[in-house]
């Protein structure tokens, strides 16, 4: 047998004083880490396959389990870290591209944490959201350019399609295929209850979910999976995905083994075949081409639905967004480099793209400078982790935010970053029937509603503190933000002052 160069990443610590050998850990681990040995009358572990998803820890009825990083480490080296060495071993063994899932875990700056919010004192009183009206409803789409009045004094304006959000938070694109049917249903039900939207991702819309159409954003991506007239008509808006924050510049690949009957039917591809989304849209090589697709989709849906164009935050994102705004799109969605994914090449995920905070500030400033900010709404995603991040994003200029990792966490995800293995123990990123079953939409939808409701309360609290009583008054209000520990260049890009100024 060949030598295994790599060590297990984790250690399973089992407190034998507590373990009652109920074997729940064994039954719940799709990676087959735990096993009951009848001869020894003992639970034993094979840690090599443990991904630290914490499923066993959460279900252990006597709290007998702990998963810890493996203490066995290679000789310390600041340049050749344990992970770097492991990756070399892995590639030397497989000869393949390294794959990873979920967002970039590297220790790169998180600008949200370097931005502080203002609060009112003395001269402008704060507002108590429990006693006074406070509005978090917002609208996405083109803002009317002007109102004309006829001779009878009746107002006339061009009505363009828009989305009405009760909270400035939407669930971002996750395809049926990358996540399970139950996960999709949970998102759909939660979005409906919250008065917001979820996004089909590029995997089409399962026939059971057409009933949630009023709260669905239907995505059209480079693979065009599941796209037909009925699909476009089903949703409240259509999103053209040009790029994704986790893997800008590359497409997607759902392996054939995940293409079961249901996914094959929804994506309209043969069962068992790989679903490969090309890196580019083969019909889009310019803003004019993008405009053609935007207009084609509008034409196909009788000009009744707003069109979103989603781009990844890359170096010249402001110029790209300016082009997108001129393409006729109603909403621009920008996805930052910390955004999640079901699978991406590790090098791309960890090294490509820019932080969403800088991209958002740059895009908002550019669109305002060019006088076209009202032509589009801006939605940002890519690791919006809390209500504070939402408030900061809106103050930097966003109209609303997209959340996905936080939504997955609400459903049970523990960020083990193993979605690409298809063995999600939480029933989210898997198509294995026995695992999908683990996510009961009754529970997950309620948890999603709880999360967004809680954030909504917090947004109101923070806005109230600033003396602001609506999202509209917070939007682009960068005077409410101050930077700490940032360079002048960073402050200039963010368009904010340093704390104390």
């Amino acid at each position: 047998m060949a030598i295994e160069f790599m060590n297990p990443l984790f250690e399973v610590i089992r407190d034998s004083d507590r373990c009652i050998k109920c074997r729940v850990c064994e039954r719940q681990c799709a990676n087959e880490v735990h096993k009951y040995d009848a001869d020894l009358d003992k639970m034993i572990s094979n840690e090599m396959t443990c991904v630290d998803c914490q499923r066993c820890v959460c279900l252990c009825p006597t709290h007998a389990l702990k998963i810890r990083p493996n203490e066995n480490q290679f000789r310390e080296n600041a340049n050749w870290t344990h992970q770097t060495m492991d990756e070399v071993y892995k590639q030397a063994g497989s000869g393949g591209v390294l794959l990873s899932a979920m967002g970039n875990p590297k220790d790169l700056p998180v600008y949200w944490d370097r931005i502080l919010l203002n609060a009112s004192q003395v001269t402008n009183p704060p507002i108590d959201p429990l006693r006074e009206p406070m509005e978090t409803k917002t609208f996405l789409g083109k803002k009317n350019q002007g109102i004309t009045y006829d001779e009878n004094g009746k107002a006339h304006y061009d009505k363009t399609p828009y989305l009405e959000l009760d909270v400035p938070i939407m669930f971002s694109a996750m395809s049926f295929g990358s996540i399970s049917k139950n996960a999709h249903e949970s998102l759909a039900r939660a979005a409906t209850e919250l008065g917001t939207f979820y996004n089909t991702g590029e995997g089409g819309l399962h026939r059971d979910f057409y009933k949630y159409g009023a709260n669905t954003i239907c995505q059209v991506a480079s693979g065009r999976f599941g796209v037909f007239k009925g699909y476009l008509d089903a949703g409240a808006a259509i999103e053209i995905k040009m790029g994704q924050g986790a893997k800008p510049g590359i497409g997607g690949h759902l392996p054939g083994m995940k293409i079961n009957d249901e996914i094959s039917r929804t994506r309209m591809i043969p069962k068992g075949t790989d679903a490969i989304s090309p890196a580019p849209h083969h019909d889009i090589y310019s803003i004019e081409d993008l405009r053609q697709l935007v207009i084609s989709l509008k034409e196909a849906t009788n000009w009744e639905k707003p069109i979103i164009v989603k781009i990844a935050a890359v170096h010249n994102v402001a110029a790209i967004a300016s082009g997108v705004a001129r393409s006729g799109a109603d909403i621009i969605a920008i996805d930052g480099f910390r955004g999640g994914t079901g699978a991406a090449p590790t090098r791309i995920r960890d090294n490509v793209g820019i932080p969403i905070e800088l991209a958002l500030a740059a895009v908002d400033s550019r669109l305002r400078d060019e006088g076209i900010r009202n032509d589009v709404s801006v939605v940002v995603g890519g690791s919006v982790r809390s209500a504070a991040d939402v408030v900061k994003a809106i103050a930097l200029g966003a109209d609303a935010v997209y959340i996905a990792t936080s939504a997955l966490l609400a459903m049970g995800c523990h960020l083990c970053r193993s979605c690409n293995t298809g063995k999600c123990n939480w029933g989210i990123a898997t198509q294995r029937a026995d695992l999908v079953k683990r996510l009961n939409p009754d529970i997950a939808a309620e948890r999603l509603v709880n999360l967004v409701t809680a954030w909504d309360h917090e947004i109101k609290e923070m806005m109230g503190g600033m003396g602001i009583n609506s999202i509209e008054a917070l939007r682009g209000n960068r005077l409410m933000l101050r930077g700490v520990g940032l360079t002048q260049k960073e402050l200039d890009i963010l368009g904010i002052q340093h704390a104390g100024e």
Partner: protein
Amino acid sequence: MKKVYVNEDWCLACHLCEFYCAAANSGAPDMVKAFKSGKKPVPRIQVEEGSDVNFAVQCRHCDGKACVKGCITGALSIKDGVVVCDESRCVGCYTCVLSCPFGCIVIDEEGHRIQKCDLCTKNHDGEPACVQGCPNKAIVFEER
């Protein structure tokens, strides 16, 4: 009246209900003590496993035509709709074990008497232990 029902769509066959049931009825203050001191307590709920479908089964609290009528000592009776066993009167003849069409009456850990689900009326407040312990709402306690 409220009863325990199962939804096989969500049963993962994790068997946690069995352990929560056994511990709750053992009289021990916590699960570790229940299973680590003396004989292992026997659950009154059992998970039936199939290849695709799993579900937990415990007393349906039906009209008791089989077990209550068959009981030779009058240990089994129906109180407020719940089929209960007066363990002091049970002689361990197991007539009820044989006659229950759902296989829901089990022999206790000592092997002398029967025990069965009483919806945790003797040991738990509110929801029965199996319902509280189910991680996926596959077991519910509700009016139907």
